[in-house]
């Protein structure tokens, strides 16, 4: 299986849409592909964090604002349109882009560090003096049960 195919399957598995065989195929691929494992972990974390985000609540004075608008008879000028106009100046666009770019930069750095083995997680940063560790799963052994004699 190619990595490009695995990455499609990762989405299916995380969305619960993959068949049993597809899941098994993906797991065998992940077993030997650290890049795809990283993608799987990242996607899992994204799904988890998105689920944990709170649903935004409407402003407390929304009802008053709607009532006032209805009373004034001006139905064209919505608060959203006002806000858009307010944000349409270049100054605010630049201000919004800076934290976004900074966030992307930090994420890029984190991923790079993970590649080089210098950090393990984003919140718990700890230097590892050894180079990146390679892991290999224990081989499958045939099931057998010795029957020894015991006296008690």
């Amino acid at each position: 299986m190619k990595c490009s195919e695995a990455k499609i399957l990762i989405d299916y598995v995380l969305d619960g849409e993959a068949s049993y065989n597809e899941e098994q195929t993906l797991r065998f691929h992940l077993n030997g592909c650290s890049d795809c494992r990283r993608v799987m972990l990242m996607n899992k974390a994204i799904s988890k964090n998105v689920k944990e985000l709170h649903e935004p609540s409407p402003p407390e004075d929304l009802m008053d604002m709607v009532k006032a608008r209805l009373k004034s008879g001006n139905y064209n000028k919505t608060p959203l349109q006002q806000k858009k106009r307010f944000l349409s100046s270049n100054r605010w666009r630049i201000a919004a882009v800076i934290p976004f770019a900074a966030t992307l930069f930090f994420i890029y750095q984190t991923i790079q560090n993970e590649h080089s083995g210098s950090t393990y997680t984003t919140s718990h940063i700890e230097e590892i003096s050894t180079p990146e560790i390679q892991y290999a799963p224990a081989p499958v052994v045939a099931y057998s049960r010795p029957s020894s004699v015991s006296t008690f």
Partner: protein
Amino acid sequence: MLNLILISLLFSSPFSSFTNTSAISVGRNSGNGDFIEICSGVAISPNHAVTLFAFTNQNDVFVIEKDSRIFPDSTVSFRDMGLVMLIFNEEVFSKFEQPRNISPPNGAALLILANHPTGLSAIRSFPMEHLDDGALLLASPPASELMGAPVFDAYDRLAGIVTGSYDPGDGRGELMALLPCNLWYYWAESVLDEAGLNTKQFGVTAMPATSGLSVAQGILLLDVEANSIASDCGLLEGDIITKINNSRVYHPEALKTTILNSTEDLSLTVERNSAEIEIIIPVR
């Protein structure tokens, strides 16, 4: 909104949620030190974990917790069951699950959790049949990442440990075998209680009765000492103990530790000359 998602990602550990399980990762250094070979296991107390005996035949076995290696202070092996207990003087496991006297029925929904430093694998499966020695054949093909992985039932109870592959020889090919908790929880309990196995001599020499003997499954008494507790209770050489307090037993360890821990009389179901009888062992 996107910023919020990305910021929350940045300040949360993507690994922390995966460590919130009693499934653990056990490692040992490869012969030439090029890589770490890993096997799963399960924490059964803050200080105890169980993994596969076959994996721990080297002295440098350790538990991998994030970026740390934690070496056990001692081990207790149960070779007949293929298990080993890793014992730590300090409390090292925040999440653990004590084994119970349960064995999932055929078809029961199970979740296999293999914990490796590279991530947690959760695989759904179910037992297809019971093997002669009480182990279960899972509907899962062999996968090295599953070795030693704990298995949980639909109630999140620890149901057992994946112990290796088994070919039933009927064309289904190799499947993974599960060692259910009912086969080893007596042993685990006695190690946790530090009770040891120095029971007052009960007076039997026993071994697991296997299908090779064409007899009922249970504990075969090879010898019963004269004037011992066992003989006083009416046990005879050749008896096969199939149940203790109506629970199936397969291994002398179960009888030994039950006698040790029991606070009330025990009822043994014994097969003798193809007939089933009941024998009471008074509390000691």
